[in-house]
């Protein structure tokens, strides 16, 4: 067993792994050419609505004049698929993985992915990838466990032998149960929290709590003059009627004011605690929590959308998260973008469906992305998002802001806290550089996606923008 290895044995093992460094594997040709069904499946799963990927008419008017694959799909095309894994003796990476598995480092998590795109892939393009092992690290203690980082570089060529892109990729192979937090009691997640203060209610306000229990944000409305009122009263302040009903708010609003509470700490809440005064599109305001973004990301005026948080068996509270803005339908011009510009926040609720469907759409059949039992056996708390999806969602985020015609030149990400189900990842970003290169006008966007545990994805992307 590797935990019983002496330092000398460890060194010998690392040296054995490293002997493979510099070797390249046999070229792997994609099972299928670039095709519309796989693209559509990807776009559906990632909720990427850029029409250049699926709508031939829109694509014809776009920068490529025809349908292209989302660039972040680059390594999806040559993924092995749901077939038994046969270790390729020629492939130095899979050889190293097998050696690590055998030595007990069966946990696997991808940590870095850097794509470079020389051109967008068109329907019918048939990709071949060649993997080169570029590094195997010494044994490291990481938060997840003791393991080795394995770094590869893959070059992708089309059916004509033209170089279309490349990928720098790093994974951690680790021994489950050897993480820094293994066995330790995490105060916040395991301590039983007392419930929040229970809303007091009576006949004047029951409608509100009945509504929120069922996922509706109800606002009191005068049935005579239609005037809205919150908090509810017994009589219309506009016309004096006592004929009061309610309307169901659309759930969209903007942050009118906010506070971030630090002290004193009430045990029912997590601190720092963001509390907002939200002005609904319907015109009334209410106090609520602003979830799924850091206190430092709050801004008066930011668009919000409601969701309902269950706090007691029979109580749900209407709370708010940053609103996902509609896609930008007119691509930003290079001159309209300035260094320092901030991208709007974008929440991505991490449903099990999202995690599983995106893994499959990116042809990543590793069990840790869809099978909870296997995921926990391999040292994870639950199934978690695969790295190709983190790339895809990052690209969607930047693309939705920049517009359909922005052309991705590269996409570099680093992963941190895993994206587990039933959390929410909120994307933020800003323009960090502008430059002209090879006749193209390039904006560099730095972005981050944070979930409740911390940053999940941090990265940069270069996009070419039209000049006007």
């Amino acid at each position: 067993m590797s935990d019983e290895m002496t330092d000398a044995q460890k060194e010998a093992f690392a040296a054995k792994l490293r002997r493979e460094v510099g070797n390249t594997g046999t070229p792997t040709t994609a099972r299928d050419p670039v095709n519309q069904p796989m693209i559509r499946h990807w776009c559906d799963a990632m909720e990427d609505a850029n029409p250049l990927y699926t709508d031939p008419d829109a694509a014809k008017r776009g920068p490529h004049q025809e349908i292209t694959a989302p660039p972040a799909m680059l390594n999806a095309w040559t993924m092995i698929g749901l077939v038994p894994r046969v270790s390729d003796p020629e492939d130095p990476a899979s050889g190293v993985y097998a050696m690590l598995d055998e030595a007990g480092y069966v946990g696997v998590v991808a940590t870095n992915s850097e794509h470079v795109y020389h051109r967008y892939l068109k329907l019918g393009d048939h990709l071949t990838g060649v993997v080169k092992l570029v590094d195997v690290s010494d044994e490291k203690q990481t938060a997840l466990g003791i393991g080795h980082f394995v770094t590869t570089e893959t070059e992708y060529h089309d059916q004509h032998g033209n170089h279309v892109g490349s990928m720098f990729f790093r994974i951690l192979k680790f021994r489950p149960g050897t993480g820094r937090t293994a066995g330790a009691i995490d105060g916040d997640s395991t301590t039983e929290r007392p419930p929040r203060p229970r809303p007091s209610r009576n006949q004047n306000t029951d409608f509100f709590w009945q509504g929120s229990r069922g996922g509706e944000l109800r606002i009191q409305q005068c049935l005579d003059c239609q005037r809205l009122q919150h908090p509810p009263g017994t009589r219309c302040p506009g016309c004096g009627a006592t004929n009061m009903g309610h309307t169901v708010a659309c759930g969209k609003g903007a942050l009118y004011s906010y506070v971030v509470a630090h002290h004193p700490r009430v045990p029912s809440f997590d601190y720092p605690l963001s509390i907002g005064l939200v002005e609904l599109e319907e015109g009334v305001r209410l106090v609520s929590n602003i979830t799924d973004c850091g206190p430092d990301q709050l801004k008066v005026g930011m668009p919000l959308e409601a969701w309902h948080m269950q706090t007691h068996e029979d109580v749900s509270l209407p709370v708010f998260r940053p609103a996902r803005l509609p896609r930008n339908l007119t691509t930003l011009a290079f001159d309209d973008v300035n260094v320092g510009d901030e991208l709007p926040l974008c929440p991505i609720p991490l449903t099990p469906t999202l995690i599983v469907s995106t893994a499959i759409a990116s042809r990543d059949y590793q069990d840790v992305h869809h099978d909870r039992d296997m995921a926990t056996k391999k040292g994870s708390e639950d199934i978690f998002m695969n790295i190709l999806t983190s790339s895809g969602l990052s690209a969607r985020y930047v693309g939705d802001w920049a517009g359909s015609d922005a052309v991705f030149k590269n996409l570099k990400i680093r992963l941190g806290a895993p994206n587990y189900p039933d959390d929410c990842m909120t994307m933020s970003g800003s323009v960090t550089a502008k430059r002209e290169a090879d006749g193209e006008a390039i904006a560099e966007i730095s972005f981050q996606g944070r979930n409740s545990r911390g940053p999940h994805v941090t990265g940069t992307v270069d996009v070419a923008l039209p000049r006007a």
Partner: protein
Amino acid sequence: MTLKYAYHSAIAGIGATPFTKDSGRTPMDQAVEACLAACEDAGLPPEKVNGMVTYSAEQNPEIEVARNLGVDELTHFSMVHHGGGAACGVIAVACQAVYSGAADYVLCYRAFNERSWHRFGAGVQDRPAGAEATEVSFSWSSPFGLVTPASWVAMFATRYMHEFGATTEDFGRVSVVDRAFAATNPYAHFFQRPITLEDHQNSRWIVEPLRLLDCCQETDGAQALLVTTAERAKDLKQKPAVIASAAQGAAEDQHMMRSYYRDSITGIPEMGLCAHQLYQSSGLSADDIQTAIIYDHFTPLVLPQLEEFGFCQRGEAKDFIRDGHLERAGRLPINTNGGQLGEAYIHGLNGIAEGVRQIRGTSVNQIGNVENVLATAGTAVPTSALILSQPN
């Protein structure tokens, strides 16, 4: 409508216990001591008192205080609503009582162990659910963790900063002014402990945008004031502080500390209502006020109070403050006792006592040529204010 009791009454006596963090005594003990001290200060035998006014959150019933003072007959007694918002309201009600003949000598008091017993800053986190309107009103904020006075005020502060470009430093400057006066007031908790703006900026967050040094203290102690007619006051021991006017105000769509639903939340319309009544009934204006006690439970709401009383235009309090006008040599030195951040937090009553001292000329931080002193009460709740003037 105009207040008929303008210039009719006066504060004839003031009395207080030491202000501490752990009195080691009951609030009742302290209430009685402060009331006796106010009578002593005025030279009035306590048995002559026949009116008593206090305000909500007071836990020492006036009848028990009266029993301990040796007062046999009370012909006026009342409890004014809304805690610190009633600090000047108790004086207004006392004025009404002596103007109407309901009482001759009225004691107004506040006594508590707000630090060593129940901590006021803890807020309403432990209130049980209930169906009464008071409890139901908390359901629009408490389930979200908005449970403390600091958090209620912070919501106004963020919006004020957003609309007018004020910064947390502008709030800090109020704190620095208070602490500068406290530093030279031996009665103040923070005697000889002034702070700098840097100290303020380095103090920890309580509820952003409020830092520790934006928040008043919690104090054990008591303060009492004796109100009678200006005529009777002439026969007592001290120079009367004539009550030019005293008024209460609650404005449209008023909520307790959380009037967040009005078209604008950067002003304090209930304080504007007080200002209007005071100026109209007294014939005075901002130009006639030399110094003021501006209620400072939390610094941000000092700014709109200056605007409501016309010391500066709306949104310009930050400039007024940056120009040093609240300081010792400024246009309007405020809270010369150190305020509730520097001296003690007796829900505004200790500030009114300082106003009396400014009229008498006996403040440790005496301002020159004081004709009229403004005092205000707790903000964000239904509130009150008064102007004290020199006797003729």
